[in-house]
């Protein structure tokens, strides 16, 4: 079947198998930031945005993105918030093998963009869908908290204050 979606701000038409998951279709379209990990919705390495909401693309039907907006990390490379998140992951040593990084970045980006609270608790919640086998979560969380501080314009009121 043929679907038309808005991928990273551009209208695209694509021929897909009706049962295909979004993960396989996006990789077929060259979106290699979308990683195949578990394919059971657990690891988050395939996280993308569907109409701005984070989803695990391995458990989303590609067909349902017809007439909807899909955003992958490739589409956010020029975005100032995304750049800041990326840089902070690097600076904090929150990237080792890097397999989980695109998913972590998308989850954090969605959380920040939605205007959610940026406390330690809420940022942990935002990362519940992302497994990282290398860094052990402390560093990604530190990176997220640093960006949160910068966004809120100062180093105060961290760790659950707001």
């Amino acid at each position: 079947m043929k679907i038309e979606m808005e991928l990273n701000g551009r209208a695209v038409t694509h021929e897909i198998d009706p049962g295909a998951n979004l993960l396989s279709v996006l990789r077929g379209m060259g979106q290699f930031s979308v990683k195949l990990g578990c394919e059971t919705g657990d690891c988050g390495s395939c996280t993308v945005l569907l109409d701005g909401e984070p989803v695990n693309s391995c458990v989303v039907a590609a067909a349902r993105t017809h007439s909807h907006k899909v955003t992958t990390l490739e589409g956010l490379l020029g975005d100032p918030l995304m750049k800041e998140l990326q840089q902070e992951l690097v600076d904090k040593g929150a990237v080792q093998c890097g397999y989980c990084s695109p998913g972590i970045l998308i989850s954090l980006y969605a959380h920040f963009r939605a205007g959610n609270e940026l406390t330690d608790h809420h940022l942990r919640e935002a990362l519940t869908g992302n497994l990282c086998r290398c860094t052990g979560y402390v560093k990604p969380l530190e990176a997220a908290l640093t960006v949160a501080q910068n966004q809120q314009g100062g180093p105060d009121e961290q760790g659950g204050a707001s």
Partner: protein
Amino acid sequence: MWELKEYRFAATAQEAGALRRQGPGKGAYIAGGTDMYLQPVDCDFVVDINNAGLSDIARTPAGDLFLGAATTLHNIATNPLVADFAEGMLIQAASHCGNRPVRSTATVGGNLCHALPSADMAPVLLALDATCYIADEESQESVPLADFFVSPRVTVLDDRLLVGLALPAEAATRRCASYKLTRSAEDISLVQVVVALGVENGKIETARIALGAVAPVPMRAVLAEAQLVGQSVADISLDLVADAAAIAAGECEPRDDHRASAEYRRDMVRVLTRRQIMKALHDETTITKDSGGTVA
């Protein structure tokens, strides 16, 4: 890969039913797909109900809460109308299902229609007396959720569509407490217990004890509930609460699996039911000095 011949989109509930029954071959509804992509259903085509107008959350003038079947768990977990109902119990249940990205697409209808014993939205909805609205082209039927589940993975639906759920205004003021026992924060339930008590003039007028993952289908412990009705909140005895919890443990029918033994599950029903009754009564009863942790 999931071999499907066709993926259809329904714009209304009526159209969904028509598209499903029109053939050729076997059809199934799909909402979030988070269950279906894990366990592909044997069918020729699916009918997508995500844009069929089934995603509303509303409070009627009388105070009933309506949840469209295709409402996502994330929308339930973040909706202020839901937060105001029954001490936010539905929010607690929805936000403990899976992980953040799964909740963006997973729907409450999918959770119930998949009909696993461990469906995490079922106990809270049972405890708040949810009614299921079911439709096909000709008729609408409403069925209490307590009569919706038939056996694991089987409901009363057949090829009909679950349109939504209504929770009566009267349940909005129940005192509630719930607990989802899991191996890890994101795992499915080993045991889930939800207690909802309607209290009037210091007396328990209605009692609901709903259990998940401890019987072929999500269930209510009706004998244990009966034990609580009519009791005065201020001087209900600890023994009576413990008795009710033991009765609930007798009512469930857990089984062994790789997550836990039946014996452990049954004992956890006893312990957790006792604690949730105490927690639900917390503000008013005089026996809550024991917060539930010490008396076995």
